[in-house]
């Protein structure tokens, strides 16, 4: 799968990412690095431990890297989760938000694996 197609499939904006990061190789490099990054696992563990401070930091990082890499859908769901965790007093919707993040993350990571 071409990088441009990947962005299309994950509802990203390839032109915008290219404009910012300039090089496709760089984009691909960091997409793969994102796939290996422990940020998501750390988020899951922090939520499992109900350590909302760490969970917020992980969600914040996840949101940041998604923004950098132009992963808009994953960025939006992680942003929602991040805001929920800000103040370390999440509401009832936390689980569902995390489910959204998890679903989107898995799909994104899966599709990253398909990039040539």
């Amino acid at each position, binding site marked *: 799968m071409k990088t441009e197609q990947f962005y299309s499939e994950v509802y990203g904006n390839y032109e915008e990412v290219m*404009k*910012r*990061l*300039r090089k496709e190789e*760089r984009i691909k490099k*960091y997409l793969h*690095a*994102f796939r290996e*990054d422990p*940020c998501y696992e750390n988020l899951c563990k922090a939520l499992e431990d109900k350590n909302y401070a760490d969970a917020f*930091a992980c969600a*914040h*990082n996840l*949101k*940041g*890297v998604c*923004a*950098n*890499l*132009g992963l808009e859908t994953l960025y939006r769901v992680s942003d929602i989760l991040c805001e929920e965790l800000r103040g370390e007093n999440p509401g009832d919707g936390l689980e569902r938000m995390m489910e959204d993040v998890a679903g989107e993350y898995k799909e994104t990571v899966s599709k990253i694996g398909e990039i040539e």
Partner: protein
Amino acid sequence: MKRPYTGKTVAANGILIIIFGALAVFTLLFTKAMVLNNMTEMGEKIVESYSLEERRNIEMYESIINYGTGHLDDVERNSGQSGVENWLPYYFSMIDEVVGEDIVEAYAIINGEMIGANGKAYDGADDYRETQWYQRAVLAGGEIVFSDLYEEENHRHKAISIAQKCKNSSNMIVFNIFPDKFRIYTNAISMPEGSAYYMCDSDGKIIYEQKMTTSEDKWGKRNESAATGISFMGSDIGKYWGDLYRFSGSEGEGNIYYNERGEKTIAYTREMKNGWHSILALPENFFMEKWYTLRSVYFVVLVLIFSGEIFTVLKGLHAKKRGDYAEGTIDILQNAFFALYKINLGRESYEIIKGSEDVKKAIPKEGKYQWLMDTMCSMVAEEMREEFAQSFSITNIKSQIAAGAKDYGGDFLRLFGEEKKWFNGWILFSTPKEQDEVILCFRLVDTEKCRRLEQQRLLEESVEKANESVEKQQTFFSRMSHDMRTPLNIIIGMSEQAEKHLKEPQKTADYLKKIKYAGKQLLTLINDILDISMLKQTVELDEKIMDIRECVEQCAAVFGAQAKAQKKQFQFSSSVEHQMVYGDMPHLNQILQNLLSNAIKYTPEGGKIMLSLLEKEDRERTVYCIRVADTGRGMSEDYLKKLFVEYEREKRFASQAVEGTGLGMPIVKTIVTLMGGNISVKSKLGNGTVFDVEIPLKIADELEIKEKPPESVEQAEEKDVRLDGMKILLVEDYDLNRELATEILEECGAEVCTATNGKEGVEQFKLSKEGELDAVLMDMHMPVMDGCEASRCIRALERSDAKTVPIIALTANAYQEDIERTRKAGMNAHIPKPIDVTLLCTTLWTEIKGRK
């Protein structure tokens, strides 16, 4: 006005007090002299009286003894010795009959023998020849002699002897008299209490003394203790009293002494022909007590009179002071008021204290109050005349007094020559219930009244504006609740629909599209609200070198494409001589975006949008004119007036569901004003709208233009911004982002050192050499220490580059409040996330070069 008490009156009273004081002292001294004189006269009379009494006594004894010696010569010559022996008892018994028994001890010396009262000779009484009386009597040759006081051997008490030798023989008759027998019981003037009388012999010995010590201790009762030891020596009274009384001096006829108790005593003396002395000692207190009493009474009266006079003088002084004060007050009042009238409420009359020229010409100095009121009313502005007349009518003044008011009045308008001015009329009264007079005063208050009226007008305007603002805000919240709820409801509703149709991708995609649209609409609304809120606070424009034509062209390109897509015509033209200027491009873009988006929004399909940029010289400044015109719906005249008012929207098109927050145009107006420019609008309903924006901008220097970094991606790519030789500290906690930023910076030629949190960043900075680091790229949200805190720590370090090294924030939140927070922390610029290579490099380049 009459002065109740003047300075002359006070001075006259003062002189009277002095004269009265002098008279009082003179009278006192005169009275004392009189008292002392009376005392002397009294003393002299008493001592004379006592002396006379004593002389009578002595003369009685002299007569008896004269008779005895004369008769003894006759008896001896006629009857011889036997006749003498027979006659002597008869003579002695006669003495007892005349002077009383045991008063006199009489005996005779017959032919050398001492014959007693019983007619017999005393045995062994030959030593009489040694006695004083015998020797004096022999020498006297028939004259009566008196002995001094001596102690009589037989009776062992003191006695006086009176002796006379017969003229024709050596026979002699002798009387021994005891001192007590000289005591005076009758005829003499009574002595005052506390006084003493002394009878002294020629040698100064006290024969007897009589004292009036107390009312119970009257005549005849010898005060032994007082008499004991008193001895008058010689004829000088001072010698007599030397032991008991201390001589002090003479006063009047008497001599002044002080007795052993220190009491002042005055002595008066009389010498009798036998050499004895009568001495009267009068205690000064006897007289002086009266004098003291008199003096005390006198003093009391004097003090009362003086007090009264001083009170009168003080009262006068106080009255004078009050008079001065009142006069000063009147002067002040005359200075403060242009007219003062004294009004008598009982007589309903007036008196002009100070009158305005026009009133003085119209009415006499005194007269009926109605005359004054009629004159004043004719001068007061017509619309206030009735109120003036009512306020200062006698009836109203009385009713105000009855109500307990101390003063009252009001402001009125009246003619001063040709000009109308505000004046203040006031009634003053101090003790309204007792006095029948009040003061009516007028003061010019035109300036302050006008100022007060202006202040009141401004206040009313402020209140009105505040009410309007509150009303607008209420309207805004009412609208916002609708505007926010609408997209939120869409989002929620469409989300539910999407959930229900998850298995129908086409429908789900449609719902998601609507959700996205509603989300954007909501975001726009929130952004506008935040923008206007931030702009209302102090926002500093970030003026940098920019290409104004390029800026406008870029907007034209974007909106031109949008217009084309909506089948609308778009036309752009520019005529700019100086395109490089100092300006705030983001805010200029915001102006253009708001105007152009409105133009496209309100222009129907087939309509035309025109954008033009012109440069014109205006005095010393260069002004850039941006015109945005369209052939759209236009605006009503009513709406045009409120176009730049926050939260206002054209209601005429409300039914057509045109999006808008009502904040776009107020935002534009605020930014233009901030830039020192102005905006105008012409519009006609159905005929389109023309916005003209004029912004003064400073033209950039040629040298600085050359240094300016490329700002567009294309330019950046073309010019390939390099950061060669620059060392940058990158502080970022997330590995992936840190690696990405490091890679980009290194590709641009920079040397990068990294830190994973703020605290580590501060330590890295400390470890670097001064000036080694060219810039710090600082993430905002980090564990341990965030970016703002780390920046503050770096700025607080005591090294030369701590204050100057550029610190650039990497922040996902690029809202104005976040930027303000970075600025307050000492950061120089911010780069919004996500990372943009061009923006990152140009920002770093600008900040580093800009400080070198």
